[in-house]
């Protein structure tokens, strides 16, 4: 890369400040003023609205395989989600996903 040290630090600090402001935004400005019921109803779905959207493109076209769907990664995704739904446990879900991923990568080698 062709950035000076000063530019690199500028990028890091600007990203740090910007990211903090986004995280602080509503929590900092609204505080304990009550939100309208409809807004509360929408916000209840924030985690399930964000996580699938974040992950679906990564599962369908992983960068590590140049964007082509990969059986080991697809199977690991299915195993993680299924075990998470069945056990309600993040730990078991992660273990199932990692075991499937490494198991299949090794088998399909």
């Amino acid at each position, binding site marked *: 890369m062709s950035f000076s040290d000063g530019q690199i630090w500028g990028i890091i600090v600007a990203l740090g400040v910007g990211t903090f402001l986004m995280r602080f935004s509503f929590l900092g400005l609204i505080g304990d003023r009550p*939100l309208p019921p409809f807004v509360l109803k929408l916000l209840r779905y924030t985690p*399930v609205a964000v996580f699938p959207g974040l992950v679906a493109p990564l599962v369908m076209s992983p960068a590590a395989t140049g964007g082509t769907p990969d059986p080991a990664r697809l199977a690991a995704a299915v195993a993680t989600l299924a075990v998470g739904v069945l056990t309600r446990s993040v730990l078991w879900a992660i273990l199932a996903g990692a075991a499937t991923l490494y198991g299949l990568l090794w088998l399909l080698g």
Partner: protein
Amino acid sequence: MSTSTTKSAFRDGFLQGLPFLLVIAPFGLLFGVVGSEAGLNVAQVMGFSFLVIAGAAQFTAVQLMTENAPVILILAAALTVNLRMAMYSASLVPYLGAAPLWQRALAAYLSVDQVYAASILRYQERTEPLPARIAFFFGVAAPLVPVWYGTTWAGAALGAQVPEAMALDFALPITFLAMLGPALRTLPHVAAAMVSAVMAVVLAGLPTGIGLLIAALCALLTGAAVETWQERRA
């Protein structure tokens, strides 16, 4: 409000944070490796993980920096990846909004995806006094954040010695899917999740972060609409 409830909430949070180490550690290691291979020195790689503390945005920034993209584009792309944090912030308001300013500021700094996910699940499942909610939040962050710093440093120091066969790239999808499973509690949750996934894949061609934002907004509306429909039927 007793101190013991607050203490046990912190301990609960700490214990629920521990499993995420399995994904935070490889992800931090991977960022350290990628950052140092891109030409950043150890202090700069650590600066990212300490000041930005958001893996996906950090990867986006470093990727664009290696392509010598204009600074303004690097900032715009990485911050767009983090727009979801504003949604997290809004959804935490009903639970943490009444906390003192310094606690809200610290919680904001610490609201990485995993801390947010574990905390919001807890808040939606049980009613607790505010100090216990704050203690739980900090409890989840307590094991994760130091390990994020530490593994970033290790990755930057070890550099290219981390083998590609570790498939560290998939730590991120696995962590989000592991957080998603337990959150799929009702029909509106499932409907919202499906809309989010489908829309994000359809909109994958848009700049990173924009597609996700549109997909997430559609999913929020879907969840609320299905919930309203269920209430009318009942």
